[in-house]
């Protein structure tokens, strides 16, 4: 039994940490987020050169062949740097789905993800669907060698920059059926695709994407027709672990920043870190962070070994990331006092990213309900 990273994983983690330290200070991050597409294209190319974009892909497609532990190592460091580049949207979500597609689709697209030339997105959310992946009104009707796609997807991560997106659409069944959902790989420049762009509080630029009689070749089907739900679920599970790793990185960074601040900030003639009331609060956030780390390790280990407790571990983790993330974030602002309220300081920006991670793929309450149903 060991909780250590391999030498290769340590090198990967170090390379992300070094990049964040040398090239990604908070001012840089702010500028990158302000770009029209919400990130810096030159930095994306750097990611490609450093090999990070290849991590989850098979070696036959030029990938690194990494698993959940490798992704965790990278995401934790990206979290500490509050990196806005769409690693999750393009590599883990879009790329993760493509990994389950035909070899023709993989060969045509994965090398382009790896070399940084292809941006992708996963368009699954609809106005009414909240956290239910199976609530799909968007329809795809087969006509000869094509599907005709109609409907609207909302809050598509990286939807502005995406050259292609994987769209969940109903090919049969009722609105909330798990069966009958198919996944289609769609070119965002295709006729009938239109986008409305907007920003989220964590710096992401997202889009609502409408599909008006968009014709998609039948061979662009990802997975089998009607079997998209299980496929989405599996990828969303993997990505949830990645997001939780990012959250852990953020929580660690917030705690470290807060401890440092209380040691330097003086009131009543002393450093405020000397007050027991504040010390105990910082111990609480430290424990919250350590407990989250433990559940993350638990979920990563059960994902790597595909153990039967996998789903339960993941739900527990998502609940804890939501709750403990809120504790750590709120305390960081409170202990920074008035400074914590400023846009100038990075603290609030880390907190807003934690809040969006909580919401993504189901918040703490939602995940807890699923946990309750699972153990009942």
């Amino acid at each position, binding site marked *: *039994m*060991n*909780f*250590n*990273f391999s030498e290769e994983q340590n090198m990967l983690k170090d390379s992300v940490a070094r990049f964040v330290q040398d090239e990604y200070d908070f001012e840089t991050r702010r500028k990158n987020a302000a770009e029209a597409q919400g990130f810096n294209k030159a930095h994306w190319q750097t990611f490609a050169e450093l090999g990070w974009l290849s991590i989850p892909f098979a070696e036959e497609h030029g990938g690194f062949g990494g698993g959940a*532990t490798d992704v965790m190592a990278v995401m934790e460091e990206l979290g500490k740097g509050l990196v806005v580049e769409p690693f999750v949207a393009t590599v883990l979500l879009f790329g993760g789905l493509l990994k389950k597609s035909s070899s023709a689709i993989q060969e045509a697209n994965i090398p382009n993800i790896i070399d940084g030339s292809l941006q992708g997105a996963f368009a699954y959310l609809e106005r009414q669907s909240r956290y239910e992946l199976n609530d799909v009104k968007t329809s795809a009707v087969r006509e000869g060698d094509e599907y005709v796609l109609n409907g609207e997807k909302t809050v598509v991560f990286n939807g502005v920059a995406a050259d292609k997106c994987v769209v969940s659409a109903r090919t049969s069944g009722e609105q909330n059926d798990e069966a009958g959902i198919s996944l289609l790989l769609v070119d965002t420049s295709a006729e009938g695709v239109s986008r409305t762009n907007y920003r989220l509080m964590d710096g992401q630029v997202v889009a609502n994407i409408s599909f008006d009689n968009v014709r998609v070749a039948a061979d662009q089907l990802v997975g089998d027709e009607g079997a998209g739900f299980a496929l989405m679920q599996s990828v969303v599970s993997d990505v949830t672990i990645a997001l939780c790793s990012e959250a852990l990185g953020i929580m660690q960074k917030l705690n470290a920043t807060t*401890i440092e601040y*209380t*040691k330097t900030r003086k009131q009543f003639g002393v450093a405020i*870190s*000397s007050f*027991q009331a504040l*010390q*105990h609060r*910082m*111990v*609480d956030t*430290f*424990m919250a962070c*350590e*407990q*989250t780390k*433990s*559940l993350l*390790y*638990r979920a*990563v*280990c059960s994902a*790597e*070994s595909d153990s039967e407790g996998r789903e339960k*571990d993941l739900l*527990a983790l998502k*609940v*804890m990331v939501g709750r403990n993330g809120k504790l750590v974030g709120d305390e960081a602002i409170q202990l920074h006092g008035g400074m914590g309220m400023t846009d100038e300081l990075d603290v609030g920006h880390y907190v807003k990213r934690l809040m969006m991670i909580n919401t993504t793929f189901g918040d703490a309450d939602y995940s*807890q309900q699923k*946990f*309750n149903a699972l*153990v*009942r």
Partner: protein
Amino acid sequence: MDLSFSAEDLAFRDEVKGFLTEAWTPELAKLFRNLDTYKEGQIAWQNRLNEKGWIAPGWPEEHGGVQWSATQHFIYESERSAVGAPNVVPFGLKMVAPVIYGFGTEEQKQRFLPRILNSEDWWCQGYSEPGAGSDLAALQTKAEIDGDDYIVNGAKVWTTYAQLADWIFCLVRTDSSGKRQDGITFLLIDMKTPGITVNPIHSIDNQHTLNEVLFDNVRVPQANRIGEQDKGWTYAKSLLAHERTSIAGVPESKRKLRELRELLEGEVSGGQSLADDVLFQNRLSNVEIELMALEYTELRVLASTESGQGPGVESSLLKIKGTEIQQSLQQLYMDAAGYYCGVLPGDLSEDDIGHGFADSARRSYMYGRAATIYGGSNEVQKNITAKYVLGL
């Protein structure tokens, strides 16, 4: 990262399961339910473990211990708690023994360790005093040299099972001139020595486990001193870190949670099982999720111990979270029992009253308040963590 069990680990698990199935009998379990037969049951159980060679994991093999890997510890504790078999009494086996084999003389090792292994000596812990609780270094019980002996005067308090104990390990003051921590000595004292009085303290759980132990000119041979005079604090500190790790009680809490889920099925309110009550479900999962995390926090500590780093100050975290979880579970048992949580059964049997779990729920709840107080209160643990982990 690799938490998978090796073939050896799986074989060990089968061996543990096999042993527990055979050794943890209903007759034995019955002895544990009542304080009058508790000690008999505990000794019988420990003797069973001793025969198997599993009484003292972590002790050096030369003294009769067994060296388990962190994974084996985890497997044993998981399986033990799954069947509800009790822990060993920690005072001798887990608390004083490591101090004796770590810092004691050869003669002390020969004299005390075999009797601890064989459960011939029952130990209790003499740390807290009326004026020294979480601030242990404030202790005043005095030991003065008189020839080959010390003469001990003072009072210890909250001494668990002193009424059953043959020996007590004590921290006593031998010097008041310097830093408070510097004048403390670690003594082993025979409870039959003239001048010792044990007074019961009846606690809010209506039980008698706690005591006050008074020392009135008690003569203790210098040969019963551990290590050097005035250095007892160092020896005791190494033991406290261990105490904090073991009182996390993860395996026990796992079993209690599982049993609670089972009994909630049978508790009906408004025609609906409490197991279907959304509020109950949320409270249960709040505890379970913290517990799932703590189980891995403990594994992380075990793994770092195994790699030679020892259970450090992070053990405070295990103590705080572990005891919070225990108390949350105790509260849930009480709430599940409804009115029956208040019934003092007297001579009534569980069948007379129904709700067989209510009496033990109440006792666990009331006694369970102690968990956040003993071993250094949770607030003191937070002070320790703030200072030594966070550097505040």
